[in-house]
Structure formats: C-alpha cells, structure tokens
C-alpha cells in the first residue's frame, strides 16, 4: 500500500512535469542563484538560478524512463531465455547459462562505462548498458526458479495430460515464478535508477541541460558546504523511489499469491 502510494506519487510528479513545472528546469537566471525555498521556488534554486523543484520533477521523468526501459529489456529477454533454458535443458541450457556467467564476470558499472565509451554518452546508450546488464540477472533467476517448478508433481500431471513444454511453461511455470520475478524486477528497477544516477554522475548518462537526479547530485557535490540542501533533495528523491518500489514489489507478491489473497 505504502509502496504503491510512494510510487504513484513519483509517477504523478513525472506526468505533471511533462506540461507544467513550478518554475523552469532549464532557464538559467544567475541573479536568482542559491535562493532559499519560497513561494516562487518551492525548494530554492541552484548555483545557476534554476528551480530545484522543477529540476527534480523533470528528472523523475528521465530516471523513470531509463529505469523502466532498462528493466523491461532485461525482463523480457532474460525471462524468456531463463524459461527456454529450463524447458529445453541440455545444450540450450548450457549455452544460455555459460553466456550469462560470462557476462556476470564484468562488474555492472564498469561494463556500462565501457559500453557508453564505445557508443558515446547519452540517455539511450545508458539505458542499453543498464538493460544488457539486467538480462543475465533475470535469466539466472528465472532458470533457477523454473527448474524447481519443473520438478513439481503438478507439472508432471500436466505432462501426463498431454500438454507440451511451451504450454506448460505459460500455464504452470510462469505464474508460479512470477512473484519472484516481480520482486526481482522492483529491486532491479531501484538499482537501475541508482545506475542511471551513477552514470549521469560520471557524465556518461543523461546529458546537460536535461536534468537528472544523478547529475543534480554530481553538481551538488562541489557545493556540499555552500548549500547542502541541493544534494539532499535529489538524494531523497532517489531514496523515496527505491524504497517505494521495494515495498511495491513485496505488496505485489502478496497480491499474486492465492494462498495469501484469499483467506478461508
């Protein structure tokens, strides 16, 4: 519940920022720099006189877009590969799992840096980098949990009634591992927001003047002693997003389990 509300709040912020922000997130007015919070500037302004509240709201857009797309890439490709590995076993499984082991050998941020170094920095490339990193995580998790379900007697019963592997995968395997995948997705969603922030912080993600939470943190770092609130706001935003998503994941898992949702 709480997680849902927090996530919803962020989504609304991002949606509103599409057509309205309290101030301008891009307009530089040097005269207005370092203003304290006021009616005009809810959270004050930064060193260039930009409105922090507006930057945060617009930044939510960027963060959420990056995280959603990156996690979706990982989710669809990773889960499909994992299900395939579990359903086919044998060589298919070996190849998929060894490939994912191989990609695990590279630290996530490092490979993202490598990728953006090759493709050039930017929002789209950082999405790609984070998404690629998510694939083996999902593949591994899916295969592991799917293999456990394949040994259940109800799967045996489904095979005994003549259902093929594909059909069993969608009717029995996927519903039974969905809750695990969703929890993992929300965790990775949070990680993706952090990763985007980290890449932007390094100057490899969202490019200026597009605001992003990570870049706001990056810029605030140099002004830590001058105006600490500038670092605290985006930090808080990231914390709320991560925390809310994790709670949402737990909540979804409970809703999806018939044993918990329908009491006797």
């Amino acid at each position, binding site marked *: 519940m709480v997680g849902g509300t927090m996530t919803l709040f962020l989504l609304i912020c991002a949606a509103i920022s599409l057509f309205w922000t309290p101030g301008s997130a891009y307009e530089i007015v040097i005269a207005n720099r370092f203003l304290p919070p006021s009616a005009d500037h809810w959270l004050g302004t930064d060193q260039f006189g930009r409105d922090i509240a507006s930057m945060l709201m617009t930044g939510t857009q960027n963060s959420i877009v990056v995280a959603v797309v990156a996690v979706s890439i990982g989710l669809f490709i990773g889960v499909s590969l994992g299900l395939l590995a579990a359903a086919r076993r044998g060589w298919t499984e070996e190849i998929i799992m060894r490939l994912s082991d191989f990609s695990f050998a590279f630290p996530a941020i490092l490979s993202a840096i490598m990728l953006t170094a090759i493709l050039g920095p930017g929002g789209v490339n950082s999405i790609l980098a984070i998404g690629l990193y998510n694939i083996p995580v999902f593949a591994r998790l899916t295969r592991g949990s799917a293999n456990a379900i394949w040994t*259940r*007697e*109800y799967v*045996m*019963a*489904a*095979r*005994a*009634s*003549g*259902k*093929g592997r594909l*059909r069993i995968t969608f*009717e*029995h395997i996927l*519903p*039974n591992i969905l809750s695990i995948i969703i929890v993992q997705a929300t965790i990775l969603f949070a990680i993706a927001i952090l990763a985007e922030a980290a890449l932007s912080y390094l100057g490899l993600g969202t490019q200026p003047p597009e605001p992003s939470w990570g870049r706001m943190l990056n810029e605030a770092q140099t002004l830590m002693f001058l105006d600490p609130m500038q670092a605290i706001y985006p930090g808080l935003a990231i914390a709320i997003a991560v925390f809310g998503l994790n709670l949402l994941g737990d909540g979804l898992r409970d809703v999806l*389990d*018939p*044993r918990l949702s*329908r009491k*006797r």
Partner: protein
Amino acid sequence: MTEEALPIPVLEVRDLVRHYRLPRESLFAEPGHVYALNGVSFEIQKGKSFGIVGESGCGKSTLARNVMALENTDSGSVKILGKEVVGLNFDQLRPHRRHFQMVFQDPYGSLDPHHTVGRIVAEPLAALGSISKAEKQRRVAEVLQSVGLKEHDVEKYPHEFSGGQRQRIAIARALITHPELIVADEPVSALDVSVQAQVLNLLKDLQEEFGVTYMFISHDLAVVEYLCDEVAVMYLGEIVEKGCTEDLFRTPAHPYTKILLDAVPKPGAGIRRDRIKLKGNVTGQTEQRIGCAFQDRCPMVEDICRKAKPPLDPVGDTHLAACHFSARLLEKA
C-alpha cells in the same frame, strides 16, 4: 466377434528396462548407472486392480512414469489398449493420453496452487482437442460430484482444501477423460488413517461405477490387499513374485514377500512376535549382478542363488515367483 474370446488387456508391459546414468565421478571414469528397471513384464485386464508393492528404490515409481510415457524408456514395450506407446513422441501420444491418467502421491504438490479447482480438473481435457466451454463445465461438475465434491468448489483454490479433499480433486482430474487405466502412485500414503479409508472406498466405488482399471503402487501391503485383485512384488527393478492377492498374501512363494508381510506391524497382536528379520538395506541398485537380486539379504540364500538367476516361474495357477526355493516355502505354508 472373435475379439471377445481374447480380450485385449488394458495394459500390457513387456521386458521394460530403464537405467539412469549417474554423473561421472571424474572426467575419465566410466559413468555409473542406476538399474531402476531390469525387464519387468505384466498385464492388467479390464476392470481389475493391479497392485505393485516394494520398498523405496525398488523401481515402482520409475515403472509408473514409464507406463505413463513421462520419460524415455530404454527398451521393452508398453501397450495400452493394444497400442504401443514406447517410442511415440509427445505429439503422437497426445490423442491417446485420454485413455490413461495418473494420480500422484503428494496431495499438496500435485495441484498447481495458482489454478482454481475447475481449471485443475479440466486440465486433461486439453488432450481431447477443442471442447465447448459449456461441455467443459458440465464434465467438471459431473466428475466433481462423482468424487464427492460440490459444484461450487470449482472456484476455490487448492489451499482451501484438506489433504483428503485434495486427493479427491486429483482423482477427479484423472477421471475427467473417462480413462480406461488410472496409474496411482502411492495415492493414500500421505493421508491420515481416517481419511485414507474414505479415499480407498472412493477408488473402489469409482471402479464399480465406471469399470476403470487401476495400476496401484504402494509400499503399504494392507492397502494393496484391500484394493487389488492381483499383486506384483518388486525388488531391485524386477518382479520377484506375482499372483492374485489371496494366493500371494496367504501363501507367499518368495522369501522377500514373506518377510515384508511379517514386518507389517499388526494392531492387537500384543507385544512383538518372533519372526524372520531382514538384515541390511536395499543394496545393489548401481551394479548388475549374477544370480538372484535378493541374494544379499535373503535368509535362505545358497550357492545356486549367487550363480543362477531364478526365472519368474509359475508355482500355481496364476501364481509366479522368482526363487529357487519356492516349492520349499510353499510346502512349509
């Protein structure tokens, strides 16, 4: 019609062999094998119950999976209603599956917790091709009623039922295609005694009503005696004795059968009686040996048992035993 004179058995198993490969212990070592089934043959006539008893590791569950064509068979033949199922691939088998269904041991593990009872019970209908929704509903309601569940139970989930009721759901699922053969692998061993009796009686009633044939696997000899017309005793992947229930339980012709029967504790028999004790555990699943499978634990073992494998020979009208000394055992009884 000439076919009436010689009815086709519902299930005919011939020389069924299944060996599992063990993982290699080292890169260059020959991989070991578990010899789970070493040439098992039997047949079941329509409307009869055939019991298979034995201890864990004797291959009885492997036998069930092979009869159900749920794993690859190494060699031998399984004919269901005269049709060979060994060697058919999954798609070729599908239209035939309506004739043989299975009931599993664990009433908790054999029902998908995410599916409603209606969906679980209707699952085998998938093999029948397209059926209208109304027809499906009608058959589900009908089959639930015949196992003693209510029509409105279709909307519920498995966790809302007790173990005994879950096993009824599993039996309903097996019955829905009106199969000729139901393979039941320890269907009552996870249930409490008072509930077990309900399920056993249900199985008996369903047989009377629908004329269904059972291949009934159990470690519990008393349960098999109650339900089955014919029994086979398995040891290390082989049938060591086979016959109609009365003969086999009253005058066992294999020492293993006799020991198994003796080992069952009997309520009201007073503080323990004296009897033949069986030493050691089941050994030898991973080796192929010369002579009798039971030689390591047999109290009657002699030299010949280690040299020659006793064939499964008739010792009575329909009674077969694989022991060199069956005659001696029967004489004593």
